[in-house]
């Protein structure tokens, strides 16, 4: 279980909530309200204060990289660092089944990075995050650039992982999607995080 207590940074008032394994919580709120700041603070990418622990182990008990391997984060605009798609994956063969299921060809690993569209990049980044096998996954608008068919595949894929025990925090602007994927809701408004009724 991920337990967050008094987590704060500039632009984010102290937030406390928890997230269980096998649970998907939707995060809603207007743009610029601090949703991305919240996710970045949970994975400890920016200086922040407060306590975050996983299964009772504080994140300070391990180094940053170890924490981020347990708690994955897919930002709204995923980053890339190499000029071939496949080099962003620790093992392309492991990633392949997920890549194909998301409607991308098997040879996408050989593509130059200039080739995939925004939607394709988003799907590739999702696969990249999933193949790390995190215990918690923070998703920031993972389906914003996708067509309806791909949206359902992504939702189904995440739902399976959640059934297998993955804990998911899912930022979405789409009210209907929130209702589909989650039963618990958080609302972020002007840097305040609070639990919200469905």
């Amino acid at each position, binding site marked *: 279980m991920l337990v967050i207590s008094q987590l704060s940074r500039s632009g984010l008032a102290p937030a406390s909530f928890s997230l269980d394994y096998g649970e998907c919580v939707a995060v809603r709120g207007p743009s610029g309200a601090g949703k991305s700041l919240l996710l970045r603070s949970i994975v400890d990418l920016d200086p922040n204060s407060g306590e975050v622990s996983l299964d009772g182990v504080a994140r300070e008990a391990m180094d940053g*990289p170890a924490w981020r*391997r347990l708690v994955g984060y897919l930002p709204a605009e995923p980053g890339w*660092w190499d000029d071939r798609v496949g080099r962003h994956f620790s093992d392309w063969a492991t990633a392949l089944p997920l890549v194909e299921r998301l409607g991308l060809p098997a040879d996408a690993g050989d593509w130059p990075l200039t080739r995939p569209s925004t939607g394709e990049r988003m799907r590739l*980044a999702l696969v990249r995050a999933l193949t790390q096998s995190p215990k918690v996954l923070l998703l920031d608008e993972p389906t914003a650039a996708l067509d309806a068919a791909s949206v359902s595949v992504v939702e189904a894929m995440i739902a399976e992982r959640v059934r297998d025990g993955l804990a998911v925090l899912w930022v979405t602007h789409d009210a209907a999607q929130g209702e589909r994927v989650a039963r618990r809701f958080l609302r972020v408004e002007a840097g305040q995080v609070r639990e919200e009724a469905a």
Partner: protein
Amino acid sequence: MNGYIALSATDLALGSLLVLANAALSLALHLGVHRRLLIAAVRMVVQLSLMGLVLATLFSHVSPWWTGLAALVMVLFAGREATARQDRPLAGWWSFGLGTSCMSMAACLVTIFALTTALRPDPWYDPRYAIPLLGMILGNTMTGVSLGLNTLTNGLAQRRSGVEARLMLGAPRFEALGPVIRDALRNALMPTINSMSATGVVSLPGMMTGQILGGVAPMEAVKYQILIMFLIAGGTGIGAVGAVMGGVFRLTDARHRLRLDRLRPLSGE
């Protein structure tokens, strides 16, 4: 030494006609650089004349203190120059402090190495050897350090999302910053590599030319130049590695986060 042809004030005035011709060209073609050109020429004359006076005084009083003081002044000027060349300097005193400490450490180390092994003047701090040697090594180390730091900070700012993507996937900071670090070190060493490969074919180094004009046998001047090139390569390498690694530590933290908030904000941010 066989003696040399001394220059008179008239000779220099004759040479300065060329700069005046440049200024006239700027006026005729509306380049708008004539003022800056003339000011730069006057500065050059004044600065070099002062340097000549300082060196003459230093050489007549062979003292470790005066040599050290001259070296310190040179290092501080080099530090200021390297800081001014940064597009996105580290915030606070870090930019000046890191650049200056790395290049002075590297340049002094290499200069003392040369003075105590290859050249061995007596005493080893004799300013006639120490000051010109330090000047040449420091100038090149400064270029390497400022290029390295500039490539590092620009690279991290521009490739931030890629670097953070690797951090998010659990890469430690040196792995996530690896490509940017390698670019920074490569850029820092490139001028030295280029000048070593072009020397003697495309360009005749100023020091060697000076020695030959001063009456030194060409082969002797060449040997000096080779030694200087090695020293420059060593100084640049040490200084650049120190500055770039220092920059990496300053721009990341113990939690392996990228800390671009420790760069001075660009104007307008």
